[in-house]
């Protein structure tokens, strides 16, 4: 028996992505997010540190991501044991204590903190692009958790 071919075989779904393969949709979405992050980093890095535009560039991405990340329901995760928590808290505590000891020490070029060491890199445009890329990528990763 003859059956007319469907005009649009989208499984009853509607919208711009109707009928799109989920894998392909995921790849396109990831590409769009990556392009947005790169565009943001290239634009934000134009702003030199210690200026109002630089503060605006950080806040314009940071505040919405914080808002979404804090309000979002956390991803389901296996609980970690006390041993893991102790090990990673120990490493974080060691790093914080080292940075604090340098920060409380003499304030000169011979005793640089982490941000003092990063300053020459972040004073250049390519360095700031890398800095913004790392920072926003970390924020997006946190939001996805």
């Amino acid at each position, binding site marked *: 028996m003859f059956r007319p071919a469907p005009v649009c075989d989208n499984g009853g779904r509607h919208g711009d992505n109707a009928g799109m393969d989920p894998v392909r949709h995921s790849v396109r979405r990831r590409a769009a997010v990556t392009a947005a992050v790169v565009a943001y980093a290239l634009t934000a890095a134009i702003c030199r540190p210690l200026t109002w535009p630089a503060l605006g560039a950080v806040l314009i991405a940071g505040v919405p991501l914080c808002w979404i990340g804090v309000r979002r329901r956390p991803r389901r995760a296996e609980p970690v044991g006390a041993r*893991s928590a102790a090990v990673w808290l120990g490493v974080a505590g060691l790093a914080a204590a080292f940075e604090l000891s340098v920060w409380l020490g003499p304030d000169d070029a011979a005793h640089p903190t982490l941000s003092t060491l990063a300053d020459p890199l972040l004073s250049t445009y390519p360095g700031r692009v890398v800095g913004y890329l790392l920072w926003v990528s970390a924020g997006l990763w946190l939001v996805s958790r």
Partner: protein
Amino acid sequence: MTPRAAIIAGFAAILALVIATDRFARRTGSGVRPLPATLTAALRSPVVRVLIFGFWLWLGWHFLAR
């Protein structure tokens, strides 16, 4: 060794410790979970979530804007 070189070596040693601990945690049978898994589990607590996002925002301000 100058104080500056010692401090840079200290930061490098801490970074190496983080990488080594994470690699150790990824070995089968390890009692320690890798850093991303530990962070993901920690982010289930609303208080920790606020603290970590606040720290992340502060990092952006401190390194890129201040």
